[in-house]
């Protein structure tokens, strides 16, 4: 028992509540939120090392032993994601300080960012299926507020779609949980896994697994991504970056967890289906990414491609592929946030959103241009940057499993990513400058600094892959061997 593992969720909740009392003291709100995120990051690093030494940790709330009570379980995979979430959230907060405006800050903006992070961390850490649903809802409720806050016409249109899609998918989630509880009789994740392994995965359970796949497909944007590009492109930059970095990743996490811990007995059905959905997502996302001229839409479709890529790793489910997925998940959280921040900054300095309306930005804002270049290389998977190791490992996994179709699609999609971003780079940064010296919007340091931090993070993640390797391989081993998780939860 260690109370430390509840803090990544409980502290942001408490902070979010306290911030309500400081509605008009914006400085206090900013500092409390930032300190909470940084403290979470430090705590996650500490926990990660503790898990390497002592194995998977758990905390039974109120002292109720599993499988009766609700509990949090921290394994390497969860804590790696908590760490990345804290970093991403801290950077988005830094960007929000100089971009979001007083109107948002007075309307409990920082409270809801804290609640969002609490929901995300809770989803990563929980060891109870119904509690996973609750944490999803905390995250989604906060995201409903953040996407609608501001009240522009486009925002209202997209947020209605977003809320409807998510309410319906949450309802399906609840039904799926009810089916599973009806047939297995427990909600503790380790206990579910053990019981399915005992009784064998009957056809009924496989059907239930498909319901879960549909739900998480909607949340993660796997094949069912129709709602994603629209709603991610209307929110203010800091919020869009937070969504792009975090929200779909929670769906991906849940999918990886459910299909490695519960439903791993019938890979010919469930994992093949994930493979097909991932392939279609890669194709659809690639087409979307090259089809539009609006920078925000191109960036949003890049989120979709990454979802497909990460779940290719789950579909083949070899050790190398899962390690690759974990690396790529971390990489993608950082780089997608960076991409959204850079795209938002470009729109903020030019006031335009389409590729063909801007050009020559690199003359006015060289640093912005070069950072965009680095992101592009990183997303395409060029070596020193963070995308490389994930792509290589996922590729290796697909070769080992002999699924060459997924391999081909995954790497062709990388070319599409490169092409779609190169189009932005060539169109917006090269060519004759459109901004004269006197019209030039001064670049705020608060806009560039968060992006610089994340650029260093992507370089560091690429160069430090060796340093991260023991943590990631421990995470993949726990995923591949459910016994480790079950033993830690039920028999210690």
């Amino acid at each position: 028992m260690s109370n430390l593992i509840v803090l990544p969720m409980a502290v942001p909740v408490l902070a979010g509540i306290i911030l309500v009392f400081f509605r008009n003291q914006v400085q206090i709100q900013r500092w409390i939120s930032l300190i909470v995120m940084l403290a979470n990051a430090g705590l996650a690093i500490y926990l990660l090392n503790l898990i390497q030494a002592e194995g998977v940790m758990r905390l039974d709330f109120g002292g109720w032993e599993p499988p009766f009570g609700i509990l949090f379980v921290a394994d390497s995979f969860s804590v790696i994601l908590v760490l990345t979430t804290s970093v991403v959230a801290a950077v988005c907060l830094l960007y929000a300080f100089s971009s979001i405006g007083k109107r948002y800050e007075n309307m409990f903006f920082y409270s809801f960012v804290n609640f969002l992070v609490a929901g995300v961390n809770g989803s990563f850490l929980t060891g109870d299926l119904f509690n996973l649903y609750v944490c999803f809802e905390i995250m989604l409720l906060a995201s409903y507020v953040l996407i609608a806050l501001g009240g522009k016409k486009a925002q209202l249109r997209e947020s209605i779609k977003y809320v409807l899609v998510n309410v319906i998918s949450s309802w399906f989630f609840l039904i799926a949980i009810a089916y599973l509880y009806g047939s297995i009789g427990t909600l503790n994740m380790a206990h579910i896994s053990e019981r399915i392994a005992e009784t064998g995965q009957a056809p009924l359970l496989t059907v239930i697994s498909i319901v879960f796949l549909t739900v998480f497909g909607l949340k993660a944007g796997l094949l069912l991504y129709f709602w994603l590009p629209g709603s991610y492109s209307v929110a203010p930059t800091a919020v869009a970056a937070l969504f792009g970095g975090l929200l779909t990743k929670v769906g991906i996490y849940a999918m990886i967890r459910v299909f490695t811990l519960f439903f791993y007995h019938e890979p010919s059905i469930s994992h093949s289906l994930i493979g097909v959905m991932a392939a279609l997502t890669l194709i659809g996302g690639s087409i979307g990414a090259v089809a539009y001229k609006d920078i925000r839409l191109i960036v949003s479709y890049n989120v979709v491609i990454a979802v497909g890529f990460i779940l290719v790793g789950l579909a083949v489910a070899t050790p190398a592929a899962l390690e690759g997925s974990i690396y790529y998940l971390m990489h993608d959280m950082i780089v997608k946030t960076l991409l959204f921040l850079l795209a938002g900054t470009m729109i903020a300095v030019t006031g335009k959103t389409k590729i063909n309306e801007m050009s020559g930005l690199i003359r006015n804002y060289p640093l912005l241009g070069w950072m965009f270049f680095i992101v592009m290389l990183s997303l395409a998977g060029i070596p020193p940057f963070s995308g490389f190791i994930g792509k290589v490992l996922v590729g290796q996994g697909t070769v080992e499993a002999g699924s060459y179709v997924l391999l081909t699609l995954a790497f062709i999609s990388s070319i599409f990513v490169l092409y779609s971003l190169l189009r932005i780079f060539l169109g917006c940064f090269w060519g004759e400058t459109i901004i004269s010296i006197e019209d030039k919007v001064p670049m705020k340091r608060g806009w560039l600094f968060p992006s610089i931090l994340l650029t260093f993070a992507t370089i560091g993640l690429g160069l430090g892959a060796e340093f991260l390797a023991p943590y990631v391989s421990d995470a993949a081993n726990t995923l591949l061997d459910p016994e480790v998780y079950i033993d830690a939860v039920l028999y210690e």
Partner: protein
Amino acid sequence: MRTNNVILRAVVKLVVFIILTLAVYLFLSGHHSPGGGFIGGLVLASAFVLLFIAFDIETVRHAIPFDFKKVAALGAFISVSTGFASLVFGEAFLTQAFDYFELPFFGKTELSTVTIFESGVALVVVGVVVTIILSIVEDV
């Protein structure tokens, strides 16, 4: 147009006290039987809403000068703090405790930390319900 609502006001003045008593009863009975912070809070909020209907908003705001958003936040703060309080005693998060005490008037009484948690829930419900009703009223 002003409607003559003397009867409504006279009844409300009386009924509000009955509702408030019922709310407290439901809140306390929730410890072992149906009831609890959520239901008690809802009934409590219905008393406030009834006041807002019978009298105009300005009058009631003057009589009950709370910012209901802050009431909700205070309630949430109380509830979450009871979770954190268990950390101070080295117990698992959200651990609750209870014991029996000899109180002068009530005799042997069970006092528990769950009641503190539930009072937080009740405040959240009151704050949220009244905030929702007031913002709908302001829109019209």
